[in-house]
């Protein structure tokens, strides 16, 4: 059997301008199947905009985005999601007044085999499909240790569980690419540790490619195989955690020029 070597994600010259502001400029990134890649950079570097471009929320001003060799830059967000690219959000976006179970079920709705007519009459097809959805949903809740919360309202969950739910919701459709936008935001060190374990677990269990935006350096350096660094809308460095940690361009981006000079001066003196 011929194995097709293909890239999961390939952006070429991806750019997005808002009026005169270059939010993203000539962004080139390639993700191979199964990678766990980090995307870091100072605030305002354009990381979330890249996510929004990939998931179809913004149309690119220029450039292309290919997912499994298919051009997706002209697709609507729901089409991209159905193709197998899902994401979580910086500020958790759950369906807050709905139950945990419903949150999951909604993410599965397009895989379901019946439409409005069957729904209205509650036909056998409807009943069978509903049973299936429920099973699958409870399965994934189980994996994420949320079964006991299944019938609770999503907004009543503690923050950490809401995060888990958001990730679970992004996975029920069996995506090939998962985009995580600052999943560690607002977490304390022990929660961070759990998060890192969770991401690693998800990476393996679901056979996924993951692109991760994160500010918490421990998370990024700890679990990412490869890291891309953004500043002012462009990638300024790419490589392994060690490589980018010692890249002067990266240090400058985070700490600023004068500080970098200070550091190098100090090194000379010492």
């Amino acid at each position, binding site marked *: 059997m011929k194995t097709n070597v293909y890239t999961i994600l390939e952006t070429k010259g991806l750019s997005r301008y*808002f009026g005169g502001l270059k939010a993203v400029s000539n962004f080139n990134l390639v993700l191979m199947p199964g990678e766990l890649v980090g995307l870091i950079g100072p605030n305002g570097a354009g990381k*979330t905009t890249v996510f*929004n471009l990939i998931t179809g*929320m913004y149309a690119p001003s220029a450039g292309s985005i290919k997912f499994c060799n298919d051009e997706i830059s002209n697709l609507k967000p729901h089409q991209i999601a159905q193709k197998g690219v899902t994401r979580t*959000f*910086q500020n958790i976006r759950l369906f807050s007044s709905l139950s945990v179970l419903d949150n999951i079920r909604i993410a599965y709705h397009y895989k379901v085999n019946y439409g409005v007519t069957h729904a209205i009459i509650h036909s056998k097809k409807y009943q069978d499909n509903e049973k299936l959805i429920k099973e699958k949903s409870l399965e994934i809740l189980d994996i994420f240790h949320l079964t006991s919360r299944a019938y609770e309202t999503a907004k009543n969950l503690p923050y950490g569980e809401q995060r888990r739910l958001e990730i679970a919701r992004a996975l029920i459709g069996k995506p090939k690419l998962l985009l995580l936008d600052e999943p560690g935001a607002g977490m304390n060190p022990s929660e961070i540790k759990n998060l890192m374990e969770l991401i690693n677990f998800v990476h393996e269990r679901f056979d996924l490619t993951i692109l991760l935006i994160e500010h918490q350096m421990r998370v990024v350096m700890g679990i990412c195989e490869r890291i891309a660094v953004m500043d002012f809308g462009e990638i300024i460095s790419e490589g392994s955690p060690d490589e980018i940690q010692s890249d002067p361009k990266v240090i400058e981006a985070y700490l600023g020029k004068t500080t970098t000079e200070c550091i190098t001066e100090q090194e000379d003196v010492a």
Partner: protein
Amino acid sequence: MSSFLQQVINGLQLGSVYALIALGYTLVYGIIRLINFAHGDVFMVGAYLGFYAILRFHMPFPIALLFAMAGAGLLGIIIEKLAYRPLRNAPKIACLITALGVSLFLENFSSLKFVFGPNYLAYPRPFPVVNFNIGNVTISNIQIIVFCVAIVLMVILQLFVSKTKTGMAMRAVSFDKSTAQLMGINIDYIISITFGIGSALAGAGGVLYGIAYPQINPFMGIMPGLKAFVAAVLGGIGIIPGAMLGAGIMGMVEVLTSAYISSAMRDAIAFLVLLIVLLVKPAGLLGKSSIEKV
């Protein structure tokens, strides 16, 4: 040709009235993101206050105008305090529905016999009508007065908002309420002032309307109110020059439609304009579209 010019002048008169109402909508929307459905009825109350001022109290026109403005402004402030402030933090729909309720209340309460009564009343003309014939166009002093009063009020408003401390506070609150509060601005006071000013302008509009189209009744505010709102959206909601521009266009479109297409289509055309604006450029002619940050 003269007929067209005549219609343009008529359109300017109507547009002037709409502008005064539209400004109130845009000021309030700019500051608390509420479509104040009751605004058209404040316009109506202003007209009636002017009516009684001239007819009952024999006030000269400028005094009657100020009286109506003060009364309408006060009404606006009271409405905000009683009906909208309690819902400041409630979901927006609650406020919208309350606004609808206030509107219905004002209309129906005014219809009661011991208040304004349900019938059409003829508006008194506090000065004789004089017509000027320029070429083959006729301009009445009424039209000149309406136009001039409107312009003067709008200029005063623009100066107030851009040059005074309170005006600056108003702009700050409309940008970012919580930050303005942190800067020491008394939000409640500023919002009250905004309602007061917007309502006073509407009150002035009511008196001018009464003088120009001399019949008033408790439901007279519904259509002008809606059309003025369309004008505010057309120009760019929350933008003061936008309300003026939009109102001018709306007045013109309405008068021209009435003259050249059909009087019956007058109302429909206004909302057709609205639909087109919303679909083509929802931010309005002078507006900037904002992208929701994820």
